[in-house]
């Protein structure tokens, strides 16, 4: 186990009320695993990702990387897990050249000498298949796809073991998205990287990931190998998402709930086609097992 999340809660305080974005998530990610974290806006997947990076404090629970807590971790641990965010435009400092953006993490972590860092920059650009002449350019002069490659190169600069990617290709055009996905896949394979890949796009997750956790209303509702979760989903919510993937006109009645007012019991019950009385009161737990769902009705 490389990453362990145990009963994680992430809360935000807004206008005197507490919003429970993540409400008790436990999951483990093994070395070399590529976990797809899927769910709709407001389900807590980005909050969970930020907590995994130690960027968001936990209201309860713990998150460990290689046996050590990520919250309050020293730089030597933190450099081993790196984020890639969705909007490469805002993730990069608009006033810093590509070279300066790539050099920064190396300088902060005192990697190598000034001369060896310059050689390292060239290697990073080769790795993400960017021409070396982009070194002197500012982010705004690059295309969206090129910016996301720079972002990826920056995340890889410290040779992390785990990448946490939050919707890294969602803002890209289809033709460019395929280039970046191919690149990411080949880097993950050659460097034996562990990935936590957050996406609302099940097709992208199915392509890249070997396991999937489905989040709804701040909880993981289904977990298992990607082929099984996406091929034979158990939870009614996952089933609805998978149906929408094949039939564009399939939707789920109702709308995703607001983090400010989670429905009681199973949070999916107001939209669920197979709801029973118990779902309105009790919250179903996520059982143990290879492929499992938090549902009273679906029997795995």
């Amino acid at each position, binding site marked *: 186990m490389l990453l362990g999340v145990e009963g994680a809660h992430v809360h935000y305080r807004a206008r005197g009320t507490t919003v429970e974005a993540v409400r008790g998530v436990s999951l483990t990610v093994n070395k070399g695993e590529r976990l797809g974290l899927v769910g709709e806006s407001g389900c807590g997947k980005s909050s969970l990702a930020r907590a995994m990076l130690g960027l968001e404090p936990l209201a309860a629970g713990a998150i460990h990387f290689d046996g050590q807590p990520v919250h309050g971790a020293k730089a030597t641990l933190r450099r081993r897990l790196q984020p890639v965010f969705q909007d490469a435009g805002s993730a990069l400092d608009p006033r810093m050249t590509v070279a300066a953006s790539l050099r920064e993490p190396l300088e902060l972590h005192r990697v190598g000498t000034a001369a060896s860092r310059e050689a390292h920059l060239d290697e990073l650009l080769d790795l993400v298949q960017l021409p070396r002449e982009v070194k002197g350019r500012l982010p705004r002069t690059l295309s969206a796809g090129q910016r996301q490659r720079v972002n990826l190169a920056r995340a890889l600069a410290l040779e992390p073991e785990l990448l946490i990617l939050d919707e890294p290709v969602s803002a890209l055009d*289809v033709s460019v998205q395929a*280039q970046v996905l191919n690149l990411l896949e080949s880097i993950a394979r050659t460097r034996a990287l562990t990935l936590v890949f957050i996406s609302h796009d099940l097709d992208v997750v199915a392509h890249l990931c070997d396991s999937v956790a489905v989040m709804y209303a701040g909880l993981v509702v289904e977990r298992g190998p990607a082929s099984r979760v996406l091929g034979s989903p158990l939870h009614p919510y996952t089933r609805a998402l998978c149906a929408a993937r094949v*039939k564009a006109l399939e*939707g789920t009645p109702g*709308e*995703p709930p607001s983090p400010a007012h989670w429905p009681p019991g199973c949070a999916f019950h107001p939209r669920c086609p197979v709801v029973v009385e118990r779902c309105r009161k009790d919250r179903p737990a996520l059982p143990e097992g290879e492929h499992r769902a938090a549902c009273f009705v679906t029997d795995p």
Partner: protein
Amino acid sequence: MSAVEVRGLGVELDGAKLLDGLSLSIEAGALHALVGESGSGKTTAANALLRLLPEGAKVRGSALVGTVDLIALGAAALERARGRTVAMMLQEPLAALNPVLTVGAHLTETLEVHRAVTKGELRSRAVALLEEVGLPEPASRFHAYPHQLSGGQRQRVLLAAALACEPALLIADEPTTALDASMKGVVLALIRGLAERRKLAVLLISHDLWAVREVCRDVSVLYAGRLVEQGPVAQVFARPRHPYTHALLAARPAPEHRGGALEAIGGVVPGPNDVVPGCRFHPRCPRAEARCRIEVPALVDGCACHFPLGGEGRR
């Protein structure tokens, strides 16, 4: 003749050709998808039809909606046409709605400005519109503010506002892009149902060919400001003829092409100021030959390509 006939629509701004000779027709009650990646000119086309282009833009061609040519209208006639002949449903509902106005005020304002109904009928007409777009509890939501609604509900309010003056043509610019996966299908089905019931022609703009395949009758694929393929959606999907359309479909990660690398299209879409002689797709095209670098291919049988797929006989 179709309800909407766009002929040779072109837009030039500061010497750059943003859109070059777009022609398409839409039947009453049908949806036509205008598909392309960033820089393809799809939003420029929408803005040209609504006459929302910046000053100095040179527009060519015509766009007939019934007997009205949107491109040729003078200022006063244009004011009357907007909302009544052509209406727009915007992409980002939170930005498109005024946060200090109630849902009802958005609709009654539109109805009042266009004098669509008498003052006494304003409220009942607005509530009826909200009901038609499937907003739950329309009478009480009439008094709600945009922030009190969910994303899907806001999208429905925008749709109601667009339909308020019974336009013949609705332009929907990426209506599902900002929505969650479980909501996209619901909104697309709603738009299609309204189009059929109201005999409304819809131009559905999307960057995602796959997302609109089930609701649209026809599709026009744009690349770098030019129409590259056009035809019935089912046909374009089953047998794409332009290498770009084919590549777009193949680049999408999908169950049917599982495993191995995705068929990425190398390079990037050229910008409006980039000079690309011949076919604008040729630098990225696996089938390109010498002729493609020199000669602009004309649209023949719905495909603008010198060497279309499945069309080897034309070589």
